[in-house]
């Protein structure tokens, strides 16, 4: 069931990402797919985060013009580590979630850009500002997503009854 929800969430994120990006003409600083991955990891654990990252990343790669596997690898690692953080620490507060989303975004950017840069496939110039903006945007969206989901009826109970790994 979680897999289905993951697939649906990823599909929605991709759809929304591409839709929004069309409106802002490439100025979108939010990676909704990454938000979904981190959210899944924080709510379902490292394995779920890993699987979500692999799936979402590969799909994202497949739909882009980049190398298949670059985003998948970055999302996989980020999803796994976010899941580890979610299971090892109490990430229930909005600020802590904000930090996790922000750091996850920075880590994702580092891996993704590092791979491209390391392989000599693309030069990102000085991406610090863009990464920072994306980290803030992802963190805001992620925290907001948590808030929205937790406002749904029975969300707390569902989360408490959910086994974590």
């Amino acid at each position, binding site marked *: 069931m979680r897999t289905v929800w993951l697939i649906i969430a990823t599909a929605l994120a991709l759809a929304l990402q591409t839709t929004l990006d069309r409106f802002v003409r490439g100025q979108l600083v939010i990676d909704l797919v990454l938000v979904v991955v981190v959210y899944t990891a924080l709510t379902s654990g*490292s*394995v779920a985060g*890993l*699987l979500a990252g*692999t799936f979402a990343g590969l799909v994202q790669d497949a739909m882009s013009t980049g*190398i*298949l*596997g*670059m985003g*998948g*690898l970055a999302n*996989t*690692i980020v999803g*796994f580590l976010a*899941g580890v953080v979610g299971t090892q620490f109490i990430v229930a507060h909005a600020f802590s979630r904000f930090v996790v989303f922000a750091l996850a975004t920075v880590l994702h950017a580092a891996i993704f850009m590092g*791979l491209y840069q390391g*392989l*000599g*496939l693309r030069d990102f110039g000085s991406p610090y500002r863009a990464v920072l903006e994306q980290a803030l945007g992802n963190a805001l969206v992620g925290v907001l997503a948590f808030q929205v989901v937790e406002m749904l009826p029975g969300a707390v109970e569902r989360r408490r009854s959910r086994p974590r*790994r």
Partner: protein
Amino acid sequence: MALLDSRSRAGYLLLTAVVGHVLLISAQVNAKTGVPILEAVTFGVFAEVQRGTSAVTNSIRGVWTGYVGLRQVRRENAELQRQLSDAQVQLQEQRALADRSRGLEQLLALRDRTALETTAATIVGSGVTPDFRTVTIDKGSLQKLKADMAVIAPAGVVGRVVVTSPGAAKVQLLIDRNAAAGALDERSRAQGVVVGTGDSLLRMDYVSEVADIVIGDSIVASGIDGIYPKGFVIGRVEVVDKSGGAYKQVLVRPAVDFTSLEDVLVVLTPTAATDAARETP
């Protein structure tokens, strides 16, 4: 335990996912050198492994080679030392042979110089006590050696035969306390009797106080004793003391180095004095 297992599973899953992604990426991307990234990464990783292995192997080989080389060097060193020892022995033998040849040549020259009938002999032993300065030579009565025959060397007078056996003879050196020889100063013809002192110097007795003897004069056998042929060198004056009574105290340095004596000539021809003494009833 279950937590550890789940963590291990998650770890293995992550590893699998990462490797899968790397393979996926490498299948599409060539490295800067144009080689597929998988090949480049694999080569890079295994090259490091190979380098490490090679370093370890080279170290072990170096140590082993050094050990083996050290053993070989030790063996070669021992062999070279043995060869050096052999060479040194051979060199000593050659040198000894050369010295012996030189000595024999000198003896031969001496024999040719003199009209005396002589026989060469080799010193095979020395005296058993320092109180008696004697040597043993390898010729005896079978070679017609008799007592009181003079023994000479290229440098000068050595002594006389005192005892003979069929194959050997004992020679009393001139430096023995009981040895004596008629002598004269080659330059001034002053006469005296040279006697042994048991030491390295000879003493010339019965030298008149008015005799003309100075340091450095050559003292030769006078032949008056009937043993030593006239004119053979005994030594050189080293000390002349005029403080005595009727005679001068004269010390003579022997011409022969008795410490390095190896080959000698035994004078078989009796001297004129000996013949005269024998003829006297």
